[in-house]
């Protein structure tokens, strides 16, 4: 298939997944507020810090109020990672490959964007952020569901899925990282199960709380890390994302698993191998935030390798030195 088309599908899915995950970040704090109303107003800053874009936020908004944070992450068109910017970009990518994807996918994404644009005026996001964000999440799911069930699982689909999963791996790492930026309990709350409530909020935002409980029953930091990083079966765990992304990549290249013929396979295969041979104890010993930071850098490298392997093809250079 055309490199440009593969690239557009890959990014279309990355952007939809990114939009959905912005809703998930915001969800961490909203979940927290529901469980501990006394926290109101204290935890908005981590939502921005985790994006890595806090400087831009401070320059333009200053204060970390609920309205500012929601405005920035949801409707700010000048911020490229806001939900509306992501959906705009996803839709433009989809438009450029609408003859490749199913019309159901295109129509759903088109409506998703148009409705979000419309909702800017109704201010639902501010009046009832929980409801608003759950709509965003459901629509993100609907898109990936439509992709799964209305598009042939051929090369284009595997590029799409690879984009979706690499984005999800990055975003799950950031949801986990939110906890690192959260403020510590106030003195009067020391000893309260405050920490656990924060961890539960993190799990909930990754739609992982019930599945976590089935495996570990009670909340413990190390086990939350184990679950979100290394669980083999949970579809938002980073290891699961890497495994499935690697499957798609090898489907595309035809190289047997465990070998590589391109820089992209090498970069992703190494990262995946490290995940297979790392334990949560080691992560904690190294420092969770540092581990996640390093992971994000390596995911960017995988993206670069995908880019030069599949998307940026150069015509063969004439060997001029020899002919002269």
């Amino acid at each position: 298939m055309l490199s440009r088309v593969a690239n557009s599908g890959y990014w279309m899915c990355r952007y939809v997944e990114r939009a959905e995950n912005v809703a998930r970040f915001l969800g961490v704090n909203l979940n927290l507020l529901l469980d501990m109303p006394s926290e109101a107003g204290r935890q908005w800053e981590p939502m921005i810090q985790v994006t890595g874009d806090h400087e831009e936020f401070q320059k333009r908004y200053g204060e970390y109020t609920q309205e500012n944070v929601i405005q920035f992450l949801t409707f700010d068109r000048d911020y490229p990672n806001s939900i509306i910017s992501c959906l705009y970009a996803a839709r433009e990518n989809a438009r450029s490959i609408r003859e490749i994807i199913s019309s159901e996918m295109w129509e759903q994404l088109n409506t998703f964007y148009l409705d979000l644009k419309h909702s800017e005026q109704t201010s639902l996001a501010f009046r009832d952020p929980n409801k608003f964000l759950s709509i965003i999440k459901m629509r993100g799911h609907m898109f990936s569901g439509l992709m799964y069930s209305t598009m042939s699982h051929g090369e284009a689909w595997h590029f799409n899925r690879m984009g979706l999963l690499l984005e999800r791996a990055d975003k799950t790492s950031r949801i986990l990282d939110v906890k690192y930026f959260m403020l510590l309990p106030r003195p009067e709350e020391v000893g309260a199960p405050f920490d656990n409530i924060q961890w539960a909020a993190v799990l909930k935002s990754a739609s992982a709380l019930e599945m976590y409980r089935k495996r570990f029953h009670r909340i413990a930091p190390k086990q939350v890390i184990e679950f979100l990083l290394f669980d083999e079966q949970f579809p938002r765990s980073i290891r699961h994302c890497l495994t499935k992304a690697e499957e798609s990549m090898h489907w595309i290249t035809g190289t047997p698993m465990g070998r590589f013929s391109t820089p992209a396979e090498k970069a992703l295969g190494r990262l995946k191998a490290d995940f297979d041979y790392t334990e949560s104890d080691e992560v904690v010993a190294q420092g969770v935030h540092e581990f996640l930071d390093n992971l994000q850098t390596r995911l960017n490298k995988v993206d670069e390798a995908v880019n030069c392997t599949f998307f940026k093809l150069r015509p063969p250079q004439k060997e001029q030195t020899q002919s002269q």
Partner: protein
Amino acid sequence: MDFSDYRTEDYYDELFQANGAPRSCSRLLIEKIESLPDGDLMQKQKAAEAMLLQMGITFNVYGSDEGAEKIFPFDVIPRVVAGDDWEKTEAGLKQRIRSLNAFIDDIYHGKKILKDKVIPEEIILSSKTYRKECEGLNPPKGIWCHVTGTDLVRDKDGQFYVLEDNLRCPSGVSYVLENRQVLKRTFPQVFAASNVRAVDEYPNRLFEMLEYLAPRSTEAPVVCVLTPGIYNSAYFEHSFLAQQMGVELVEGQDLVVFDGFVHMRTTKGFKKVDVLYRRIDDDFIDPKAFRPDSVLGIPGIMEVYKAGRIAMANAPGTGIADDKVIYAYVPKIIKYYSGEDPILPNVPTYICWNDKDRSYVLDNLDKLVVKAANESGGYGMLIGPHASQKEREEFAELIKKSPRNYMAQPTVMLSRAPTIVGGGFEGRHVDLRPYILYSDSIYVLPGGLTRVALKKGSLVVNSSQGGGSKDTWVIDSRSCA
């Protein structure tokens, strides 16, 4: 809603006779519409619009941002063309296209028609769309204009006239196909009962035509649609046609010339391309041959084309027959190459390059429509009777400054068709653009795109100027006696 208040006034109406009775082929449709329960028709209209928006069948208006993405306005009342009228029109179009193709081929080879002084040489050589680079070119199978969208209008007398020949990249056929889908769902019974000629086979025909051009003798030639990209106003159509034919939609950046062939960049390396249905103008197709500042084109593609290693539809250079001044000579062109009289007449045309014509035009600007030779989309145009004194004066200056670049025609009283306006029906002016494919034989899509000027009294039907569209039904005359 009924038609009791509808008046044809002083125009030819597509659905009604002058006495107010429906034309025989539209009777069934009118009866059906009048029998609908109150509010039903408006609901159908709204449902059709919502469907188009959700499907993302939109176009971009040049020079504006994302907010200007619009659906092409659509009116659910179809325009009906009686089969008898259509047969004559179809024969006329075939005759015209065959002669125009012979003309283009002659112009880039022996130039016999100039030597025989049927057309002044200066007119041809001064045309902006004359491509010197195309002299001596032999396009595959001797065909230059593979896809044409000829604009027809009906005057008060009910006769079809050719208003413009569009032989470069005529657009709009996707709306014909989509409008039909919507209309089938809107009026299922009347559609089934009316014996409307099908349009669905167009993508197949287009694909076969493109395949027919393939220069390599391979079993499955690689055919692509070439688009300028998602910001082009007709992007939806490019994507739609690629999808319907099941071929790749490519942009200039996807293609690269090396080793004497055109290749596309794929995830598995480079792949040779055999045929391009290109929707980029000549000017932009190859920065090495034409405009060096083009970033849309493929550097070096003209060399590959000349060497016969890729086919393009339409062939570069066809624009010469699209010049609105050369249009005036088409009746002579038909006579010259076919020996026949034209079946479809032109609208009478004054050529400002001609001294006598020019002084007539300048004296009668308030009665004439003036057009620039190489503009499209309703730009560069003066509608004398509707223009202000100042606009007319400005145009007079333009004409005097470059007379070769302008022509003028009497204002045609375009026919009208009933259109939903507010809560009722009003007559609005329409034109008709049939699509013609030139392969081993010539195929004319039955009907074509009916464009409608939605503004009251307006004669400009272009989508960029507030025009909309209607489905066009060609109905066998024998079945509507």
